[in-house]
């Protein structure tokens, strides 16, 4: 067989999409894009698979174990690879998971501890009600969340293993972090010592740095999103708001806050005379309700985000400052009776940031907070990124490279892989075991379905590990 020579063998076909329907053109574009993606992934996976194999072969070459043992190890790798291939053609649904317990609640759904029925592995399943999300224009929100979770291999980010959907819900199957979240910890302990605070803040610095390196801005770092793994080290969850661009729902939401402020103009809160203890008590009473509400709490959001004039990665360092304040003082720096009031305080942060007299903070701690709760241009981290923050005197003595290897201040005492004692499950008893069918079944929802096509992600390492942990 030989190739025809171009001169006498060339054909000519004038291309035109005239007469083809828009649906056809769209389908063709989608098919082309998907195939390109397919080959890209197929190649990447072939390379990774090869690497795993040669790595093992090389290790075995230098090891002294018996040939039989080596053979068994190679076979075991083969089984893992085969298992992974099987997972990739598995279509998962709700029926493949059994709920053990409801462990958390967020704006658009709940988080449940679930067990995959065939393997017995434990996961956290986050349910998102599509209807509510579309209503609130949260599509980009979910997409961003999924992308960050899926793309990262970072030890600082909660891993996403599978996702699937039915007409009502989107389901995210994530690794289960049995240690609960920092919000629950703060509710339990009121405040942390500076040493404990240093540990959590240092880990947060590394976690935020990792997200920034992925090219994302989190924008919504708060204690509810700082989760603790089985060893008591942190991971960030919930990339709800992390996206590179503004979304329309934001402006509407902040606009509403602004209107609220105007309505309540002049209503200065009267808790100036309260001691820190009283404030902690009031704050804690409302804290969980706020976490469960659709609006969420603006307590940790940097002022420039409200101003709609653009912001950069440094907004996450503000949030860190607010969380650090809360760890040491017991409530966040701008906490108030309602979100409008908090919003107003954040906008006036220069006058509103004050350290209560009955709480003692070291000079370094107060200085770091003041450098984080600062205008964007003067904020620590603005110029030198995470390194600028790492070299602040408050962090003196922190071994940054090995921090995940040291013992955490609070290590969860777990009795089993399904232990949920670190979650406020008694608050969640009314939440049904399985997501109830929703009543809004209109066309609008189904039309949007396409946006979720390809909403599947499966990760090799964890899935083929023998036990969940």
């Amino acid at each position, binding site marked *: 067989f030989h190739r025809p020579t171009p001169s006498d063998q060339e054909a000519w076909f004038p291309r035109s999409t005239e007469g083809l329907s828009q649906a056809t053109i769209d389908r063709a574009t989608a098919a082309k894009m998907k195939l390109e993606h397919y080959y890209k992934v197929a190649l990447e996976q072939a390379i990774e698979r090869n690497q795993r194999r040669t790595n093992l072969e090389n290790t075995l070459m230098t090891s002294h174990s018996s040939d039989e043992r080596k053979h068994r190890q190679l076979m075991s790798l083969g089984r893992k690879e085969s298992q992974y291939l099987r997972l990739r*053609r598995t279509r998962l649904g709700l029926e493949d998971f059994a709920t053990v317990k409801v462990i958390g609640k967020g704006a658009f759904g709940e988080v449940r501890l679930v067990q995959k029925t065939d393997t017995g592995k434990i996961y956290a399943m986050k349910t998102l009600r599509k209807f509510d999300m579309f209503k609130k224009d949260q599509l980009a929100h979910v997409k961003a969340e999924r992308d960050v979770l899926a793309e990262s291999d970072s030890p600082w980010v909660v891993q996403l293993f599978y996702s699937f959907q039915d007409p009502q819900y989107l389901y995210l199957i994530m690794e289960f972090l049995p240690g609960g979240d920092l919000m629950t910890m703060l509710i339990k302990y009121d405040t942390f010592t500076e040493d404990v605070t240093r540990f959590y803040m240092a880990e947060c610095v590394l976690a935020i740095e990792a997200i920034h390196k992925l090219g994302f801005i989190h924008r919504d770092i708060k204690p509810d999103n700082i989760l603790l793994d089985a060893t008591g080290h942190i991971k960030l969850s919930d990339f709800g708001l992390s996206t590179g661009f503004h979304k329309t729902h934001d402006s509407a939401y902040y606009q509403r806050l602004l209107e609220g402020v105007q309505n309540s103009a002049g209503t200065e809160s009267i808790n100036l005379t309260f001691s820190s203890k009283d404030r902690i008590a009031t704050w804690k009473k409302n804290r969980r309700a706020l976490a469960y509400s659709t609006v969420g709490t603006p307590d940790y959001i940097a002022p420039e985000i409200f101003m709609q004039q653009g912001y950069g990665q440094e907004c996450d360092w503000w949030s860190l400052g607010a969380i650090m304040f809360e760890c040491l003082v017991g409530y966040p720096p701008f906490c108030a009776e309602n979100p409008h009031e908090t919003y107003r305080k954040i906008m006036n942060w220069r006058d509103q940031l004050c350290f209560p007299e009955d709480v003692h903070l070291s000079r370094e701690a107060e200085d770091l907070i003041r450098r984080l709760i600062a205008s964007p241009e003067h904020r620590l981290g603005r110029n030198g990124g995470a390194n600028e923050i790492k070299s602040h005197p408050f962090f003196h003595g922190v071994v940054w490279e090995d921090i995940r290897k040291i013992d955490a201040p609070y290590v969860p005492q777990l009795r089993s892989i399904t232990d949920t004692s670190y979650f406020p499950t008694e608050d969640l008893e009314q939440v049904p075991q399985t997501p109830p069918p929703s009543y809004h079944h209109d066309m609008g929802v189904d039309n949007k379905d396409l946006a979720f096509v390809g909403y599947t992600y499966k990760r090799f390492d964890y899935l083929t590990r023998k036990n969940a942990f």
Partner: protein
Amino acid sequence: TKPFGVPGKPLFLCSPYVDQTLVKGSFKTIVVLPKYVDRDEWLAFNTFEFFNYITMFHGIISDYCTPHTCPVMSGGPGVEYAWIDANQKKTRYSAPHYFDTMATWIHGQLADESRFPTKSGLEFPKDFVYTVRTIFRHLIRVLIHIYHSHYDKILNLTAEAHFNALFAHFVCFGKEFELLEQRLRQEELDIQIAAQALEGLASA
């Protein structure tokens, strides 16, 4: 300007269209059985993917493949494929009817835990490779039909590089695991030639 071809050759065999491919380098990289990996699992995974992508590309032309335009499932001049059901009964279907019947059947196979197990611990049946061969026989017919009867749509949509790549990949995989029939009719050989051309191009 009117399209013109080369005498005695279908358009898809003509330059420059036959030379277009999305993928450079040898398909072998992603086709051969990876060392230590279970053969059935590899076949199952790839069959699943080929089915998804081939039906996706069929979706591009499906509006233009009607009982009217394609009253028989043809694979080029003089080649007609009959549907053979589970009882070996042959039926003549129009191309869209053939495709629907076929896609439903393959989908059923892929979803059948006793044929394509996905649950942990379930084994593949002994005759698994026969099922895969049957699926491949049907899928290549779909590709051949598109080449012979709907290639103008592929060109109008500038999808030939993609379609060629998918086709060459499919044939390369089919050959590697002996999933395609050895004996082909002359008209079908054209297609084989196209595949070879693409493969030659890919590994050049």
